[in-house]
Structures are given as structure tokens and as C-alpha cells.
């Protein structure tokens, strides 16, 4: 990339040591370990941390399931995937976590699902120069997710950036790219599993520690495989070409279309619930710098749980720039969903 053309690089070292993770199953490839421990046991939350770190870049998502075709010969067996997988030795987190501030906010600049505060946070961080790019989940007209590197508030003119998508997105692989391209830092919005994946990456690798500056988590009940949810919704009579937004409130799944609305109980979606979400107990992205979600605040507002200093800085910046207005949020409203997810702990089979 920026090879020797950039001047004044620190003289590095020509000898160094790297620790490799211990293998649970000996004389097996690391990936096979991962496969046995995480994927086959249905723990995999498809956060794609392994995909992002794999040096061979050959771990792929086939039909939304993480897979490594002919890993026997292609795998480099470096163990990176094992090092970074948040579920490899899984310590389920739950609850609200500790926070500095618990507020509701509504962006003046952006129209989103609710308050569009996730967008607001990232963009403000860009404006204040903390980061030079934020990762957003974009979707095409068929609601396939893609990642958008936002570098400028103007780019938020692309309407499909806002709004919740209840399907998985390859955020972390793009995060790797973003980290390699970035000059100041990267901000990212992700589901709780992704957040913990990022944290794992950061604790393992200084590069991510330095360059991922802002992690915004989302309140997440569950997330669906694109194939299945699309099939399911089409059965329900949802026309993707006309679909405007999807939302879950009051235990109801609401798909709003240009002309009509399709509603049904979230419970019904249980049947296509992925295994990873089935064992996920984290609703509020406890590890994030700031969590954002609709629950717990008035209509048109989104709840913001500020957990870390950098997020606090951004909030203050927003306050002084007045790009959003803030209101009261009620933590107790979250309790139901937190509890709902906490119940999933028993789905984890301990061996």
C-alpha cells in the first residue's frame, strides 16, 4: 500500500515473537477448532470477526453461514480466527451495563428510523475530526445489505443508509479495509455481537486499538439471515421493491411499505431465528462506547447510552453544535427486552 513512498517511517525491528493460541483439540487446524467449538455448536453469531482477520481472506459466508472451503490445504493455520472469535470461549454478557449518561436524542440533520442518533454520533465524530470515516450499513432495492464508508455528511443524502435492517451485514471485513485505508480513525455502528468482536480485535491487535476510535452499538433483539427473512416476509406479502422500513416495537414486527403495512408478532419469527442470536443475551451492546436504540424514549427520539469518554466527547460536541436535541429516556422501559434476551442463556449448551 503506502510502501516506501511515504517518508520518515519508524525504523522497525527484524526479529519479533508472536504468541499462538492454545488449541482445544490438538493436532487439528485452528480453523477446525473454531468450526468445532463455535459453528457446529450453533454458537456462531456471524459477526464475521474471523472473516475480517483471516490473512488468506478465504473464510466466506455461504448462505449466511461462515465457511472456509477446502481449508485443509488453504488454511495458513495462524490461529488468528481463534484469537479474535468472541464466542470461542463465550462469556455471555447481559443487562444494561454501566454508563455515564442515559439520554434520548433526536438528530436535526438526519431523518432515520427514530432519532437517527447513531448516524448523528458518527457524523459528528467525523466533523470534530475524531475519525475520518464511519461504517454504515447500506441496502439495495432488494434489501441486500452492503457497507458504506461515510467520509462526509453530504454522503448521508443516500436515503437507504438510515433505518434498521434486520439482516446480517459484513461490517467487520469492511472494518479491516477501513482500518488499512484510514488516516485518523474509524467509527463503526454494529450489533452487540459485532461490538464484542471489535473489542476482541482491539485487545488482540494494536492496529485496531489505535484506529477504531468510536464503536456505536445498537439495541438488538435478534438478526436474521437474508435468505430466510426475505422468503418469510414475501410469504407474509411484503413486496421488497416497495418496502420503506422495518421496525420492531411492542413485540410486533412492522414492515412499512409505500402503500400498506404488514404487522405480525415477533414470536412468529422465532422459527427462522439463527442459532447465534438464540444464545445471545446482550441486548444493549454492553461493550460499546455508546449504544443507541429506539426503546426507552419517546416517539421520534432514540435512546443513547453513553458508556465511554470518547462517546461523551462526541455528545458534548453535538450539544454545542446543536445538531440534535435531547430529551429524557427511561431505563426501565428496556428491562422487558433485556430480560427477554437474558432468558436465552439456557439455550447455551455447556459441555
Amino acid at each position, binding site marked *: *500500500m503506502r*510502501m*516506501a513512498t511515504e517518508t520518515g*517511517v*519508524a*525504523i*522497525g*525491528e*527484524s*526479529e*519479533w*515473537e*508472536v*504468541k*499462538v*493460541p*492454545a488449541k482445544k483439540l490438538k493436532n487439528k487446524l485452528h480453523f477446525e477448532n473454531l468450526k468445532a467449538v463455535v459453528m457446529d455448536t450453533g454458537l456462531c453469531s456471524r459477526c464475521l470477526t474471523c472473516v475480517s*482477520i483471516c*490473512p*488468506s*481472506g478465504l473464510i466466506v459466508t455461504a448462505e449466511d453461514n461462515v465457511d472456509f472451503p477446502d481449508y485443509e490445504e488453504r488454511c*495458513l493455520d*495462524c*490461529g*488468528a480466527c481463534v*484469537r479474535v472469535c468472541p464466542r470461542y470461549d463465550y462469556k455471555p454478557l447481559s443487562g444494561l451495563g454501566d454508563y455515564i449518561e442515559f439520554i434520548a436524542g433526536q438528530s436535526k440533520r438526519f431523518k432515520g428510523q427514530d432519532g437517527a442518533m447513531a448516524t448523528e454520533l458518527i457524523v459528528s465524530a467525523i466533523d470534530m475530526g475524531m475519525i475520518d470515516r464511519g461504517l454504515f450499513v447500506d441496502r439495495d432495492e432488494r434489501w441486500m445489505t452492503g457497507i458504506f464508508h461515510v467520509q462526509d455528511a453530504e454522503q448521508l443524502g443516500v436515503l437507504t443508509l438510515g433505518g434498521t435492517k434486520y439482516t446480517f451485514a459484513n461490517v467487520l471485513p469492511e472494518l479491516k479495509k477501513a482500518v*488499512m485505508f484510514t488516516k485518523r480513525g474509524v467509527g463503526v455502528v454494529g450489533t452487540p455481537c459485532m461490538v464484542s468482536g471489535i473489542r476482541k480485535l482491539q485487545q488482540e*491487535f*494494536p*492496529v485496531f486499538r489505535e484506529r477504531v476510535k468510536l464503536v456505536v452499538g445498537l439495541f438488538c433483539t435478534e438478526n436474521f439471515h437474508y435468505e430466510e427473512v426475505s422468503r418469510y416476509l414475501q410469504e407474509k406479502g411484503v413486496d421488497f421493491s416497495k418496502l420503506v422500513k422495518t421496525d420492531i416495537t411492542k413485540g410486533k414486527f412492522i414492515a412499512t411499505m409505500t402503500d400498506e403495512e404488514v404487522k405480525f408478532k415477533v414470536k412468529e419469527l422465532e422459527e427462522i431465528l439463527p442459532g447465534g442470536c438464540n444464545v445471545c443475551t446482550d441486548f444493549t451492546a454492553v461493550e460499546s462506547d455508546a449504544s443507541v436504540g429506539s426503546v426507552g424514549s419517546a416517539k421520534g427520539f432514540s435512546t443513547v447510552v453513553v458508556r465511554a469518554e470518547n462517546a461523551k466527547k462526541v455528545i458534548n460536541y453535538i450539544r454545542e453544535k446543536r445538531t440534535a436535541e435531547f430529551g429524557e429516556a427511561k431505563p426501565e422501559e428496556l428491562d422487558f427486552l433485556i430480560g427477554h434476551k437474558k432468558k436465552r442463556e439456557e439455550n447455551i449448551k455447556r459441555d
Partner: protein
Amino acid sequence: MKKVATPEYDIKDKLKYHVSALSTAAKEVVMPLNITTHYPRERRKWPDCFRGYILFDPERCISCFECSFVCPANAIWMKEAPSGRYYPTLDYGKCIFCHFCVDSCPGGALRSTKIHDVAYKNMDEMFTHTEEMIEPPEIIREDEGYVEYEIDKEDLTLKRTKGKDKLIVDVAPSQGVPMVSLCIDRGSCIACKVCEKVCESGAVSSLLDEAKMIIKMKIDSEKCTGCGLCVKECSMQILRLVRRE
């Protein structure tokens, strides 16, 4: 600013210019300023910097792929030699003789000749294997002499010399700035050994210490040719090329 007006000819000028044109032609018939090179029987003498067919010296090649990367026509594809290293092959069906490759070659393994007049019967012959690029090729020479264009303050004159012009110029092979690859962020290394696998000179080595469960990565700066492939390929971008002290 200078204005150019087109001439108005009256009958007198017309006659004048008719005469001048005719007389010029007549003069040329009598004593022509001939500048023709009788090609098959004699060649123009190109300058030594002429960019023609390219020769290759495996001793100096560090397999850095730079010739292949820089080639605008993608005419240079690297081929694995018996020794397991990659050497360039050249496809004259694409080559545009820009010699970016020659200028790129840090070891000076590629060098230029003045061979340029070749006709192939089929396109497969135009692909030149590495083995064929080492020794200067034989081309049909029907020439008994060579012509030099000599431009003095008066005019261009042709200097004809008997004997065959030497097409293989020996220029000193270039030497790029010596570089060496180093790791600038040991912490972020995941020991994927891509650098080792991609290294053409075997300078990067890794040693697994079963007991302590660590891998010792090592770049032997003596062996390192500074080809920069590891730097390019490192998935964590933690290697850099720096000047060899």
C-alpha cells in the same frame, strides 16, 4: 502577437512561383538531397539508448515482480523456474517497448538491445519464455553497412559505413536504492507467515516454539533483497521498506 496574412497572387507572382516550383524540382532532379536508407542492405544506426528487444539476466533478478506490475500492457507475466523462483516472460504481442520494466528493475536484470525489426509467422512465437530472453537472439541480417544521420548546421547528411552495426549494447546494469524490509508493529503480527511464503529470497523465517507456544518471526536483513513483496502482501500492513544503512 504576429499576424499571418494569406498571399494575394496576381499574374506576375503566379508566374514567379510557377517558375520557382519548377526550378526547385529541376534542381532536385539534378542534385537530390537524398536521405534514403536502403534498408535490407543497410540499416539506420540507432542511438545506444534505443529501446528494442529486452534481455534478461537471471543472476541479477530478485523476482520482485515489479516489471510485471509496472507493465502498462500487461505483457510481462512471471513464470516459475525450476528453482522455484519467479522470472519474467515477455509477450511481444503486447509489448509496447516503453521499457518501464527496464527502468523499474532494481537489480538491473533486464537490459535493452537495439533489435527491433522482426516479423513473426504466428502469434504463439511472439511469446518469449524466460529461457529465451537470456542469450541475445539471432535475427536475419541482410545488411552490409549502416547509415548515420549527421545533422550539422547546414543540413542533414548521410554517413555510410561498411560493416554490420552492433545491435547488442553493453550498458552498466542499473542498481536500485538498496532497501530492507522491517516490522514496525510487532504486536499486530498474527504470524500468518504470508511474508515467509511470498519471500523470494528466503529471508523471512518463522520458528514455532512448541513449549512457550510462540512463533519467532525473523527477517534476515543480509538475505533480504528489499523486493517489498512481503510489505505489499502483509495482511496487517505492519511491514515497511526502509533504506539499508
